[in-house]
């Protein structure tokens, strides 16, 4: 089992004729993901390495029965692409595009909500259920099938952690990169609930970072609702206040959003917090026996 995506997931790629879109569409297909189509207005009828291209998401859904979409369009077109995916009734949209104005995400979310479409991202690496489906831009070979669910605001830091997990024989049900932007789709709590309900997930890793209070809220939620063991890591303990650390969301505003607060909140909720990524497998093992 897994959350959000599995072998049945039928994926379309929005922006499939762009450089990133075509590259990753091909990679995902090679990895076994069920890539059923792509969208590029005016390129309908063409195909990219055997993947049929459609003019609109609606056309693609009608022709293929797709339920999920991944968005690779340039930042200025991402809002429109999200809304188009929502309007076509997709269940899940993964927005990889980085640099999307926050106001555009805020403006697109009501459309997604209206149609019951879940979104991951923007500015995220996507998600993977090893052995079943990969929808994103991560390096698939570091992942392995298993019983750990992972949620992260970061890209390469996630790979770092997954690498440790896999090397320690701890495979994953699903790993989700929720993205580092200030406003995003599915967030820690939404995904924790899914992992809690997924019978195959036995433990959960949460990788947070400075900025906002999502980790504090997550800690409170875990205390109340999550029975499975959770291990956390927070990046940015040495970040100075008022400076954006790469991710637009990773900024400590005066007096809140610090790593210390987040670590304290997790610890108060009974979550083990790793001092460094390499410590995570040991902490998990301690809790899973």
């Amino acid at each position, binding site marked *: 089992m897994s959350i959000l995506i599995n072998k049945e997931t039928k994926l379309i790629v929005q922006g499939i004729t762009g450089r990133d879109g075509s590259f990753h569409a091909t990679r995902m297909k090679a990895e076994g993901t069920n890539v059923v189509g792509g969208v590029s207005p005016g390129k309908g009828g063409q195909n990219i390495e055997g993947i049929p291209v459609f003019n609109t998401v609606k056309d693609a859904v009608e022709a293929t029965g797709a339920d999920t979409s991944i968005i690779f369009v340039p930042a200025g077109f991402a809002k429109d692409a999200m809304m188009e995916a929502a309007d076509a009734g997709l269940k899940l949209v993964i927005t990889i595009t980085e640099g999307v*104005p926050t106001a555009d995400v805020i403006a697109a979310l009501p459309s997604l909500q209206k149609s019951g479409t879940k979104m991951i991202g923007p500015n995220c690496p996507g998600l993977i259920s090893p052995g079943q489906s990969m929808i994103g831009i991560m390096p698939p070979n*570091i992942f392995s099938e298993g019983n750990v669910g992972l949620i992260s605001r970061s890209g390469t*830091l996630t790979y770092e952690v997954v690498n440790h997990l896999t090397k320690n024989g701890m495979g994953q049900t699903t790993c989700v990169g929720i993205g580092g932007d200030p406003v995003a789709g599915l967030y820690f709590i939404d995904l924790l609930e899914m992992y809690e309900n997924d019978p195959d997930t036995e433990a959960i890793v949460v990788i947070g970072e400075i900025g906002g209070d999502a980790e504090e809220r997550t800690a409170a939620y875990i205390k109340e609702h999550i029975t499975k063991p959770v291990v956390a890591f927070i990046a940015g303990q040495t970040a100075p206040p008022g400076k954006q650390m790469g991710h637009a969301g990773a900024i400590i505003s005066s007096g809140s959003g610090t790593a210390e607060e987040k670590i304290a909140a997790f610890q108060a909720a009974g979550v083990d917090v790793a001092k460094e990524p390499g410590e995570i497998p040991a902490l998990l093992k301690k809790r899973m026996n």
Partner: protein
Amino acid sequence: MKIHEYQAKELFAQYDIPINEGKVCYTVDEVIETYKSYNMLTVVKAQVHVGGRGKAGGVKLANTLEKATTAANNILGMDIKGHKVEKVLVAKAADIEKEYYVGYINDRNTKSAILMVSKEGGVDIEQVAAETPEKIFRYAIDPAMGMPDYLAREIAFKLFDDIKHVRQAAVIFQKLYKLYVEKDATLAEINPMILTPDEKVLAIDAKMTFDDNALYRHPEIEELREADENEKIELFAKSKGFSFVKLDGDIGCMVNGAGLAMATMDMIKLYGGEPANFLDIGGSSNPQKVVDAMNLLLEDKNVKVVMINIFGGITRCDDVARGLITAMEQIKTDIPVVVRLTGTNDKEGQAILRGTDFHAVETMSEAAQKAIELTQS
């Protein structure tokens, strides 16, 4: 992107948000001239991209030409938390009956803009939020609805009882929202918004920041950019495709990915070292990027060691290793470089680096420890 108070007030004026009159001055002479033209109680305020001006002595009242001159002399050129004051706002001081806090920000939890208002204005709102959160009223704004009259009024009634004041505040909430949305702001704050003894509601401070991702559609905001020294370096880094923040340590960091970059700084600190910077070189790590990043790091004369931490994902580690060697051939430096490569084909990558000038290691913790050791040699 940050702008100064005087610039935010110019935007307020464009949106008909009432403010107290003022003028930005770059020299003591300009301050004197401005004071003379006002000839009334005046406030001289440092214009810097950092909070806490008041506590640092960067805001002074003056009711005589002499005091205005002294204030100008003291404030212009002063250093506030590492920011040199190059200009001041000289503004007519308003009579204050009461002070309020008004601020729009984007909120991760409601996934919308929110308006926060409080009767506790003129003080540090973060402190109010921490100590008496019930004194802050928060309203999530539905982007489809915006700030309709009834909502603006409803919120204004939280601050005022008199409908005359309510109507003025409601209009300010609406105009500030329009400004916030139309210019893709990420913060629009009035602290304080005041009620004067003659029952006018106006903004006597103004703070705005803007979404860097949206600046492409707001050239008029981009034009307001007045970067100070640190910001100029960060902007230069950005032009190369990097995210860069300068710090005070001696270990220069070069990492692909923001989260991993933060974790790398944390790791250095964990083992007793001090990072000289945050540097995310982004997704790929081609030789030219490494050259550019190295040049950026080496501009900081405090840097004694460079630590490169790359996760080879789609790009394989053996390719990255070869790229690093190519890059370092172009850079003449005696600064030792610790390299840690993980991910796809990491063993092969590490093997390639063995026997080169690079200090190649296998894990982040080894890398941090090695870098710290080298700073001490």
